[in-house]
């Protein structure tokens, strides 16, 4: 059964159909959330928030739209809200951060050795994480949607409340920052 039919069944009162949707989409939402935050714990929170918010707003979902795309937009907004809350909390409890642009990426604890690290060198991984941390929340959201999820500029604009040209410029800025940060690795 298609996701859209499942959504219709949830609206008709069949809560179990929502379980199927959660089962089908939760891993994709987690990947998006992790790439937005760089932090597993935060990503887990965002996954839960996304499905709760989606459940409550399901009546706004149009049957002719694609459920996965709609859920993606909900997840992006949950992630942005989460990052905003994290920043506020940091400002309230620790004073003002030095770097306005820094996000949750900066609070990533040093990772213990994992198979992933055997595939990607520690230096490269840290460099990429550092580069992602230099993006503003909106730039990171736009970049993740474009680079990892293949969303069009139009979809990104809708999700972030931006016009097409603004969404495009956000991606250009993000790519420019990432290139600058990764330049030494490219040259080496």
């Amino acid at each position, binding site marked *: 059964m298609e996701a859209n039919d499942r959504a219709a069944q949830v609206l008709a009162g069949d809560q179990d159909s929502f379980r199927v949707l959660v089962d089908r989409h939760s891993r994709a939402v987690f990947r998006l959330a992790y790439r937005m935050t760089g932090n597993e714990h935060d990503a887990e929170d965002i996954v839960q928030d996304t499905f709760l918010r989606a459940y409550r707003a399901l009546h706004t979902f149009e049957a002719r739209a694609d459920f996965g795309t709609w859920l993606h937009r909900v997840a992006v907004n949950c992630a942005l809200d989460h990052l905003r809350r994290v920043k506020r909390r940091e400002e309230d409890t620790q004073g003002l951060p030095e770097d306005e642009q820094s996000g949750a990426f900066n609070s990533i604890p040093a990772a213990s050795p994992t198979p992933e690290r055997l595939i990607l060198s520690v230096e490269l991984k840290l460099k990429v*994480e550092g580069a*992602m941390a230099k993006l503003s929340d909106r730039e990171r959201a736009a970049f993740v949607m474009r680079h*990892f999820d293949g969303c069009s500029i139009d979809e990104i604009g809708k999700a972030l409340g931006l016009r097409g040209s603004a969404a495009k410029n956000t991606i250009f800025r993000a790519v420019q920052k990432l290139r600058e940060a990764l330049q030494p690795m490219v040259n080496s």
Partner: protein
Amino acid sequence: MRHLTQDDLVLFYYHEEGGVDRPHAEEHLRSCDLCRQEFATLAQSLEMIAALPVPERDENYGAEVWARIRPRLAEEPEKRWTFFLPLRTWTLAGSIALLLVLAFWAGRFWQQRQMPTVAAIPAPARERILMVAVGDHLDRAQMLLVEVMNQEAAGSVDVSQSKQLAQDLVQSNRLYRQTALRDGDAGMANVLDDLERVLLNISHSPNEISAEDLASLQHQIEAQGILFKVRVIETQVQEKQKTAGPRLPGSVL
């Protein structure tokens, strides 16, 4: 020969529709060493990022998420406009924000009357309080706008909750706009003026509006770029919060 710009190369890399003329760009990349090298380094950078690993979640992950959220679905059965906090919470938050502004104005008034012993709160701290209040206001306004923009219309749409929130925001928005005008901050005053029109439109709507009315409202927000402007001035306000002075001893602000 016109070289491809950085932006052209990004659009080309992502196969973005409506971007560069793809056959032309391919032809140019074949014949231009400079652009080909530039494109190669761009692609290399982006491929490094693509290699950033994401922790895997196993097949049971969906069931785990379901187990965590299921009890919360039952706790909050409200189905409409629940992106927002309950209205009472917003009303309380709005009241606190207004009290803070009144406290700020009272401080200014007493200072103007040259009664320095009454001005217990230092001016930078008062400025910070005002910025916090304005920041909260903009945050709430932004959430309202995002919700309206994300709303997908099908038949009639219940906007009663957002209508009440908009009514609540109109009053404080007007105060902040007048304050911005008085302080000579025309940029902020203009944005708040645009925002106020949208808030008034929402607050004057019936509890249920048609899909066409919702689309019109979304068009108004989109066409004037209000959401973006609000985000910009919210960022500016956050900057001012930082420069407005130290926190009050014992204060959470």
